């Protein structure tokens, strides 16, 4: 197990390196730079700007010094657009926000999704099942950029119950709509997965044995069926968490939460090289970490798996 984890961590390094290089080159291949403006900056000023941010260096040197900055000082450089901030500061401000509503959405999605899926499986082909399946597919195909304005319209304008956006240090009123908008489609996927695998487990031999032993149904389900049924769900969670961070673009856009999702898209559009790279690396690292955690959990739940 330990060697496995170490091996996985060893892959993380080339992965991140690959990510940095690809993003870096893509970014620099794009037309326009961070200082491309409608009011064209005079050549002399542009030269000064490039000198200040090291953009006058050959590409490989920029890349090398960027990587060195990260390795040696954990310094992701200055933002080229938000000039009074560094990338570390931008991430330090935005990431906790994204992480907070992302994690809450994630937990909400897992709990409601599993609940819905289990209920649907137990009462297969009842109205509850149909309802659950209907809700989950409906929620899965409704894009969150449709959901967000609908929520805003309902809760802020018509009902006037919730503030239309902002973060305010993470007070609950400000979190309700972001969490609903973000969690719904994952809840749906999880419910579908859970239902399918629960159905499979419920017809398996060991459940039949458990029932034959005369155990109460609730015990059968909680003790014997749930754990194996969650295995396929578990492997979905790794990628899901990451795509939630990507999906946070929509939340940041509509609800002004100030997370890193919007920062990423902005940085790509503004050619804010450093911010874009910083966030890409962060999300890449998270992906690796989360996939690893999921694998470990997997092994822990299912002792048959050996690495």
């Amino acid at each position, binding site marked *: 197990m330990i060697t496995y984890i170490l091996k996985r961590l060893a892959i993380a390094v080339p992965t991140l390196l690959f990510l940095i290089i690809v993003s870096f080159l893509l970014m620099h291949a794009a037309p326009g730079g961070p200082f491309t403006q409608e009011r064209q900056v005079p050549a002399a000023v542009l030269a000064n700007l490039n000198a200040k941010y090291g953009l006058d260096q050959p590409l490989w040197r920029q890349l090398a010094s960027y990587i060195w900055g990260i390795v040696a000082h954990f310094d992701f450089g200055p933002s080229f657009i938000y000039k009074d901030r560094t990338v570390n500061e931008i991430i330090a401000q935005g990431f906790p926000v994204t992480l907070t509503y992302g994690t809450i959405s994630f937990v909400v999605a897992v709990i409601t999704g599993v609940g819905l899926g289990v209920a649907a499986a137990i009462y297969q082909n009842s109205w509850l099942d149909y309802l659950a399946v209907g809700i989950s597919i409906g929620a899965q195909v409704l894009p969150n950029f449709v959901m967000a304005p609908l929520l805003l319209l309902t809760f802020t304008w018509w009902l006037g119950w919730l503030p239309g956006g902002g973060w305010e240090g993470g007070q609950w009123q400000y979190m309700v709509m972001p969490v609903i908008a973000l969690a719904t489609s994952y809840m749906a996927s999880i419910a579908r997965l859970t239902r399918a695998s629960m159905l499979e487990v419920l017809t398996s031999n060991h459940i039949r044995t458990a029932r034959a032993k005369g155990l109460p149904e609730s015990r059968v389900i909680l003790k014997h069926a749930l754990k194996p049924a969650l295995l396929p769900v578990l492997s979905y969670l790794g990628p899901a968490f990451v795509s939630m*961070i990507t999906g946070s673009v929509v939340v940041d856009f509509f609800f002004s939460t100030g997370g890193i999702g919007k920062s990423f898209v902005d940085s790509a559009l503004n050619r804010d090289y450093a911010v874009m790279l910083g966030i890409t690396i962060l999300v890449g690292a998270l992906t690796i970490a989360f996939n690893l955690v999921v694998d470990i959990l997997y092994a822990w739940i299912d002792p048959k798996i050996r690495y």
Partner: protein
Amino acid sequence: MVNQASTMPAAALTGKEVKGRSPWVDARRRFMRNKASVGGLIALILIGFIALFGDAIAQWSNEEIDFNVMGQALQLGGPSISNGHYFGTDDLGRDLYSRTLQGTRVSLMVGIVGAFIAVVVGTLYGAISGYVGGRTDQIMMRIVDILIAVPFMFVVILLLVMFGRSLFMLFFGIGMISWLNMARIVRGQTLSLKHKEFVEAAEATGVAPLTIILRHIVPNLLGIVAVYATLLVPEMILLESFISFLGLGVQEPLTSLGALISEGASTIYYGTIWQLGYPLLFFVITLFSFFFVGDGLRDAFDPKDR
């Protein structure tokens, strides 16, 4: 477009059927017994039919502006038979009916081509890796491990920003995201096929490895590939809609369901609800159908049921 994709497994079925013994017939029977899946298939065929031939009854093209309606979408742009805008118009006075049809065509195409790229690349990659085995297998799978950790949505955004938006870039980006899982699954299956008699027989008679992969391994993977392909299509369509939301989708006057929905969603505040409603309806039905068909196929091919 749709017809081809949804009947692809069916076509494969009939091809195999001739040869006699077949899990394919079983699979088809199982599939046909699943009402939701059959319903989904019918809905898909219908949507495909409307998307392809619905233009025949359209009175406006997808780019013509109805200057009588332009600027008064709320008052005059609602769905109406009399002025020929069956689904109403957008804010500019363009006919939503023909735009929705055209958008559906683009979305389906993106979904199907994206899934196709994923399937071809994923299957070949996985089959080669699994069949060749040894060091090659290890390296190829390490590469997949590395790529899978790349937040590809980010890379797609970058690609579109960098190289300008185009259908090609969309396909390329979307296809690139999705072949990785396919490759893993196919490799797993290949490993189990590798030591089957027919493969060993082919090897013994000196058939070239690539031919073995293409002739003997890949055809035996078609079932599982078809299932994943069907489930990939709606994912691709959803992805495209997200890209359209970011403003990086296809060029005007072309549109996609994602772009239409995104536009419609931004105007629901102003009461022009049909601008969201009709494209969303097509979108939802298409995705539902693909999910149902995919689920049905999975159940039909699921070895555990046999």
